């Protein structure tokens, strides 16, 4: 942010009279606003795409009334949610009931800060990027627990505790499955991880093809992340048919809208992390994005990143409407007995590979054979 502000002051000499901290603060607030607008738009358009994909897979049309092909459905939904009556159950804890959606939304939105959208497009390139995302997404659990408790409703409490147990259990495979990318890059910073995948032209620089362990770890990460964001087949805590929508059963109107937006925000964060760590992030195949002039490099790399992230979100939605739901004990068994040992073995495998082959992946070794 500081370097961006410096370059802005050089470009616009009028601003050199303003103290540095005002400019930095304004730049921070503006970038946060841009990210917020992106998150909310993604939540809205994502809900429309979700329903269309659901309709496709279930052999029906989906929303098609509001606007051409139903494309304004999310605006109608948004207006409906905002205009609904704000009902708080009589015996519910009012303060915690109102506070819980904010925790969930902050836990999901705060991770947007470190996502590498383009060559220079990152709100804050923290040098603990991946670790920061893991730390911040654990705030969602507190919100879910409070929502379940404050609703004064047995099903909400049960759903809240199950959701909290599920998210906490799947945090471990998520973190461990991201570690191979960190090991290959040698840094927790997401821009460093993306840059480390840019060696070979084309898709072969991606961490996905670096060695068989990272290939496996991509699928482990995707599975664990699908569980952590409470998507089917792991969505028992908020299943409509099982638990009457779980911890958010008493929420209506814009409070429910917060939970809904937080879920889509989480989906995007998970997909963005998967693209940044395994699918090459903002690298464009057969083009060296960093060598292009600033505007085109940023624009093309932003397009590449969003295309990959949206493709992964579509895959998540596809899996969501295809597979049946796991029972809660099957869910916990899968986390603790299958995913946790597999991710640890995977991490060990990657470490040994990097030690033996001195950090080179399979494509790099093949490329060095050809000179």
């Amino acid at each position, binding site marked *: 942010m500081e370097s961006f502000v410096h370059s802005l002051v050089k470009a616009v000499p009028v601003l050199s009279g303003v103290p540095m901290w005002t400019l930095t603060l304004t730049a921070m607030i503006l970038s946060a606003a841009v990210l917020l607008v992106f998150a909310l738009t993604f939540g809205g358009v994502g809900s429309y795409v979700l329903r269309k994909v659901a309709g496709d897979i279930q052999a029906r049309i989906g929303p098609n009334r509001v606007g051409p092909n139903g494309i304004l459905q999310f605006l109608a939904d948004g207006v409906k949610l905002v205009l609904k009556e704000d009902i708080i159950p009589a015996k519910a804890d009012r303060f915690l009931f109102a506070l819980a959606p904010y925790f969930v939304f902050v836990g999901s939105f705060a991770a947007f800060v470190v996502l590498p959208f383009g060559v220079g497009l990152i709100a804050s390139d923290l040098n603990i990027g991946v670790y920061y995302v893991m730390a911040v997404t654990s705030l969602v659990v*507190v919100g879910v627990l409070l929502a379940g*408790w404050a609703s*004064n409703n047995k099903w909400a409490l049960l759903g809240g505790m199950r959701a909290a147990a599920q998210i906490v259990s799947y*945090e471990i495979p998520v973190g461990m499955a991201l570690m191979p990318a960190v090991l290959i890059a040698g840094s927790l910073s997401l821009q460093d991880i993306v840059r480390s995948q840019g060696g070979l032209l084309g898709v072969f620089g991606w961490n996905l093809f670096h060695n068989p362990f990272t290939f496996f770890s991509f699928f482990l990460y995707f599975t664990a992340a699908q569980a952590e964001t409470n998507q089917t087949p792991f969505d028992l805590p908020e299943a409509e048919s099982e638990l009457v929508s779980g911890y958010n059963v008493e929420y209506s109107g814009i409070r429910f809208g917060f939970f809904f937006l937080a879920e889509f925000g989480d989906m995007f964060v998970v997909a963005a992390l998967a693209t940044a760590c395994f699918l090459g992030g903002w690298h464009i195949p057969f083009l060296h994005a960093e060598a292009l002039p600033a505007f085109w490099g940023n624009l093309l790399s932003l397009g590449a990143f969003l295309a990959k992230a949206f493709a992964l979100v579509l895959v998540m939605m596809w899996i969501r409407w295809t597979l049946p739901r796991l029972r809660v*004990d099957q869910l916990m068994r899968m986390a603790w007995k299958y995913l946790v040992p597999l991710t640890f073995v995977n991490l060990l495998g990657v470490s040994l590979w990097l030690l033996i082959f001195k950090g080179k992946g399979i494509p790099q070794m093949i490329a060095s054979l050809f000179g």
Partner: protein
Amino acid sequence: MNGPADLIFYILAALTVGSAILVAILPNIVYSAIALLFAFAGVAGLYVFLSADFLAATQVLVYVGGILILILFAVFLSHRISDVKLSNPARFHWQAAFICLSLFGVLSYTVVSTSFPVKPGTVYQPSTAEIGELLMTRYLLPFEVASVLLLAALIGAALLSRPEGRKGTSSDMEEPK
């Protein structure tokens, strides 16, 4: 530190100490737990001011995302479901307040009147690489001992919270076929 950095530091300090006071005096235990969350978050912010970025993320990850969840689970599991307002009355207010305030007075006076050998010029640098290296070389033994201790705590907690079943039989632990 320039202007806004000082202001943010004071806001974080007020958040931390204010939340800690709320933890101590709020009668409803769930509200105390939420105040504790803000105290932990405030301390994490203070760590960032002390160039301890890895430690700040660890604080949020372990304390907010782990210990606070455990505390909330314990609160929810140790009350009947009909009690919405979990009241937690305190006693010996005045004696304890006197002790704690006098202790705070003594500690602050000691701190303010001692001249610590502070090295001039603050340095902000990322700490993750150094911590990782030291944990693997100089502090390897505490690292390994901590992992064994965590294993023991895990087994102990799981054993202690096993449901009271039929004595000796482990048939309730088998997976459904």
